[in-house]
């Protein structure tokens, strides 16, 4: 790409995360060389931040929610459930292409066996579906956390609020997210304040509502935290580690380490680079007695970022 005019037309695509592969590389190469286009990108980013920070556009009246909820409930109860496949196949059973009627001796059993079989199948399917749905939502949350983290670092999803103040971020999220969210205040006698640098926050769409995204830095490494309510996702999957009654789930994807956990009605996903820290940093991170106690209670492997997660979780839990 030699012309800034070409670059201009790609700025929106870049900020919307629609630029990929070679186009993305060419664009980034040009940005690296052209201060003028970098300035244009910053301006556009600032403008879009202003627009997006005005979310939400509107909130549906509570009465409408109730009315639609009732209507849908009636609609659901009025609609017969699809019959299980086995029922249809049994009903249409054929041998050599001809329908087969149940024998007279078996016919009286059919309603009972069908009922029992239906109940068993429905129960099994229900359990499996519940598990798979929960897993699907947990996976979607991890994916959203990774995508947001990656795009935010790449400058494609700008922070809507840039600050290093926990209080400002907590205030900013008030009434923007459908759950009560408070960041731990490290100034309250903890030693982590110097360890983490808060960078800012933004809203992220997840399951039809907004999740809270908070960006940090530990040394040069960007770390992010995505928070949603447990009604949207519950931490699940990955390698689980129990500590103080909280299950932490470790996931590795796309070269990133993600820890998820659910507590007090909220689900958290902490995303970081795997190579974020060394053994020494754990000592610093868990210098306080509560952190050490938490560490003793956890079966941790060599991924020291887990220690930071546990510590962070403890701080969050303390805030609840």
């Amino acid at each position, binding site marked *: 790409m030699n012309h800034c005019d070409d670059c201009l037309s790609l700025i929106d695509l870049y900020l919307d*995360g629609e630029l990929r592969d070679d186009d993305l590389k060419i664009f980034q190469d040009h940005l690296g060389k052209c201060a*003028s286009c970098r300035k244009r990108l910053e*301006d556009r980013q*600032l*403008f879009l931040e*202003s627009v997006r920070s005005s979310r939400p556009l*509107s909130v*549906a009246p509570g009465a409408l929610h109730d009315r639609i909820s009732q209507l849908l409930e009636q609609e*659901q109860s009025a609609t017969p459930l699809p019959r299980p496949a086995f029922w*249809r196949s049994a009903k249409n059973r054929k041998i050599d292409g001809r329908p087969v009627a149940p024998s007279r001796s078996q016919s009286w059993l059919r309603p009972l066996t069908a009922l029992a079989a239906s109940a068993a199948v429905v129960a099994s399917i229900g359990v499996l579906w519940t598990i798979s749905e929960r897993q699907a939502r947990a996976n979607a949350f991890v994916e959203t956390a990774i995508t947001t983290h990656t795009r935010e670092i790449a400058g494609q999803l700008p922070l809507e609020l840039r600050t290093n103040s926990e209080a400002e971020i907590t205030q900013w999220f008030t009434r923007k997210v459908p759950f009560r969210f408070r960041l731990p205040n490290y100034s309250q006698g903890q030693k982590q304040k110097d360890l983490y640098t808060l960078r800012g926050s933004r809203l992220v769409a997840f399951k039809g509502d907004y999740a809270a995204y908070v960006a940090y830095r530990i040394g040069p490494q960007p770390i992010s935290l995505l928070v949603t309510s447990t009604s949207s996702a519950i931490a699940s999957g990955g390698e689980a580690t129990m500590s103080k009654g909280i299950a932490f789930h470790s996931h590795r994807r796309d070269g990133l380490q993600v820890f998820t956990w659910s507590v007090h009605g909220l689900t958290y996903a902490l995303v970081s680079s795997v190579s974020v820290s060394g053994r020494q940093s754990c000592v610093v991170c868990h210098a306080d007695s509560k952190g050490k106690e938490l560490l003793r209670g956890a079966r941790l492997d060599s991924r020291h970022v887990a220690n930071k997660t546990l510590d962070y979780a403890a701080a969050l839990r303390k805030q609840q």
Partner: protein
Amino acid sequence: MEKQTPTELPFRELALEYLDGLYGYAMTLTRSKTEAEDLVQETYLRAARAFDRLRPDSNLKSWLFTILRNVYLNQIRRRQSGPPIVEMEDQFSDLPDRASSSALDPLSAYLASLKRQDVHRAIESLPAVYREVIILREFEDLSYLEIAEVLNCPAGTVMSRLGRAREKLKRVLEHWRTDGGSAMGEASQNESLR
């Protein structure tokens, strides 16, 4: 083959997550609370009845927005009011594009201090074709392909329309800043164009 639903959760639980977004989009299209509520309600009923035909890999959110828009278009056709959304020149089309002059960049500082309501009013002042693409992208986070599905147009059209919509929005905001214009005044002025 037995019909499949994309998930085992009841439609009600899944779909109600998008109520605010759908209502906002309905308000964008109708500009009437009563009509928006009716439109959203009709959308949910139609979606509930067709939910079991939704492919498991489909995007429920963009599907709901698509239904809402189709219901709206059908209502408009029934009223024989002609096409509801048309490209139209707005009152800002002849404004100089100050935003492209990055050397001055007078907008940056102003935008940083913009209030939420100002942005909403500026969006309201845009022609309908631009309003809806701004809503779907900036407020609902739909991708270009998802927006294309909702608007039933090529992704390239979404890209160009979104670009124009953003430019117009930017110019409206800058126009207010430089002229001290009234947001409400601009919005109501544009309302008469529909």
